[in-house]
């Protein structure tokens, strides 16, 4: 920890490590939680980690395309949230629950 304490220049590696940690937290949360709403938030965390990586590389390579890709990720995330929350509402109307374990008809 002392090696990275207050460096005078924040390199892309710092952002990449932060994005990796954020992605891992999102993935673990997706596996651990059963509330579908919280699971969706974990997916948002992972998408944000990917976005942070894109912006870091855009900055490191001085290339604008990394930032453009972030816009497309944002659009996909917005579409995913809209459809996913509609599905959650539809499931809730039938099952009165947002618990992922209650949606087990495919389990046989």
């Amino acid at each position, binding site marked *: 920890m002392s090696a990275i304490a207050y460096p005078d220049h924040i390199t892309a590696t710092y952002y990449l490590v932060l994005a990796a940690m954020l992605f891992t937290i*999102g993935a673990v949360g997706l596996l651990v*939680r059963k509330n579908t*709403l*919280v699971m969706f938030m974990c997916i948002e965390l992972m998408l944000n980690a990917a976005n942070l990586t894109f912006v870091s590389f855009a900055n490191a390579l001085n290339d*604008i*395309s990394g930032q453009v890709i972030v816009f497309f990720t944002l659009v996909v995330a*917005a579409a995913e949230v809209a*459809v996913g929350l509609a599905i959650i509402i539809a499931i*809730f109307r039938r099952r009165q629950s947002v618990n992922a374990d209650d949606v087990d008809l495919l389990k046989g």
Partner: protein
Amino acid sequence: MAAVVFFVCAAAVLTGALGVIAGRNPVHSALFLLVTLVSIAVLYLQQHAALVAAVQIVVYASAIVVLFLFVITLLGVDRREPADTAHPVQRVAAIVLGALMLTGILVLVHGNRWVTGAHSTRGALGPADSGNVQTLSRSLFTDFVWAFEITAVLLVIAVVGSVVLARRSGHRAEAPGAEIPDSTDAEATSA
């Protein structure tokens, strides 16, 4: 100074992310998600991505979080659910897998110089102090215009699809009876 901003924001990002997965109440999770998203916007600003930071605030921190909160209040699930977290074995397995994945990514980041290759193949970022809206929009509307149009189609499909999904209420229709012909119309269209 940049280091201070980075470490403060990084701490906020990780705190918010941990709060999302640790919060018992979905409303608290959504608010912790807001902390993470705003901190990431600051990190974008630090990396000369002013427009991306603004869009992050407008789309993520506003629209998506508000959508989450609307659905939470609409469904009335803003109370603690008894069997929310996974089985202990599942939880331990998830944490072990997460640690393995983090180790793998960190080894990749550490062992390779990823930031290599040609610089500015699609254009430079532009002047750092005045924002880069012009550069970004030029790239978006020339190099990526096809993908841009496709996202318009994707958004329309998503909006129509979510409206159809949210309107189909099955046998237990809470809505007044006037909604029933509409839902059969929607079923016919989707079939």
